């Protein structure tokens, strides 16, 4: 089986168009968001699958369970760490940054 010339997209399947599109920044890079998407959806839409590194191994992680259970998609949004990207709605102008470890290194004494 070969790829067909026109590949369907999720949007083709459900039709319609978003009320608005806007931009947010991920690690300084500008991404386009459709109104109503979660931060994780915006990142997946841009082909980004990882936005956190683990505490011990520094391994990259992103959304896994997609429903808020696994907490693997924790990310820092507008300076606030440990937000579940799969649940938090994207808002115009959000500054999303890769979260390293606990996301609270600033508190270390």
């Amino acid at each position, binding site marked *: 089986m070969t790829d067909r010339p026109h590949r369907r997209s999720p949007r083709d399947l459900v039709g319609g168009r978003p009320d608005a599109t806007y931009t947010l920044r991920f690690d300084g890079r500008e991404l386009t968001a459709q109104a109503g998407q979660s931060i994780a959806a915006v990142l997946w839409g841009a082909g980004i699958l990882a936005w956190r590194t683990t505490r011990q191994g520094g391994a990259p992680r992103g959304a896994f369970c997609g429903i808020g259970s696994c907490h693997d998609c924790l990310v820092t949004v507008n300076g606030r760490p*440990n937000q579940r990207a799969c649940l938090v709605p994207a808002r115009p102008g959000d500054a999303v940054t890769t979260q390293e470890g606990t996301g*609270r290194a600033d*508190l270390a004494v």
Partner: protein
Amino acid sequence: MPKRHPLDVVIVGAGVVGAACAYYAARAGLRAAVVDRGPVAGGTTGAGEGNLLVSDKEAGPELDLALLSAGLWRDLAADLPEEIEYEPKGGLVIAPDETALKALRAFAEGQRAVGVEAVEAGPAELRELEPHLAPGRAGGFLYPQDAQVQPAQAAARLLAASGAELHLGEEVTAVLTAGGAVRGVRTTRRELAAPAVVNAAGTWGGRIAELAGTALPVLPRRGFVLVTEPLPRVVRHKVYAADYIADVASGSAALQSSAVVEGTPAGPVLIGATRERVGFDRSLSTEALRRLAGQAAALFPVLADARVLRAYHGFRPYLPDHLPAIGPDPRVPGLLHACGHEGAGIGLAPATGVLVAAALTGAEPPLPLHPFRPDRFPDPAAQPKETGR
């Protein structure tokens, strides 16, 4: 069943106290078996925070035990794998106001007389010791001998190092006697013959005493612990407010709490623990959570925004006079007790193990056993009903 070498002792309980008894019995050349109806550290040990405290004990037999243990834990940290997470981090007791500071000073004076290191810290020094501590505290005392272990690991590694025969998931159904003297135990799977049986069943120690035909009034005292999200090191010591000391010695049945706040190598901050006598009630107490969270956030405002991931509870074994029962039971030859350590079992385990091993081999104990004798309580039949004032 294959023939085994005869056992010298059967230890009932695979918590940290039973494990320490097995460890020091083995060091004394004894062959031990450890029996537990559950897994390793399945009872109070697994619900503990791993406090090794001298700071909260006034001069007296329990402090003697704690000081002996503090030294033994240092030695164990060198002998056991690093997974036990021994941290000689020190305790910091905070006096909210001048009155509390005065009382704390007098308390520390008494402790110093018997060998406790206690260093007074003024408000400025407190901030240096704990940068996130809320300002406005009158002062406090630093206790460098206070330390921390990971309790389940400590119990498991002590047991592994002891080389004792392990029978986990086997409940003791009978303490076997002959002519009034102990000759072993029967479990749900086998009989274990030995001239001595050590009751290290913690909160369930009363039941083992009963099986041996005697009595020990061990009661459960519930405690809740809160566990936060993983954080970098935000709390360096074991930090608690001075009123904690009064709670430990209290006989009240009502909920008491004074949060002990500490960081862990794994990241989460632990906040414990409430003390209440509610039998074996396993339901959640939102009141306990409220008080622990309130006190922790009052000590360390930075914790107010941390998320609590988990709350758990355990049942501390306590005896009416808040001292453990350690040593031979004169009422039943061959029966020894090592239980009733309340919230201090992790800390007091090594000293308890050394005392039990000495009693088993007839060696001179490093501390007098008299204050801990198991038959010091009145006959239960004659005992007045607890009023829980």
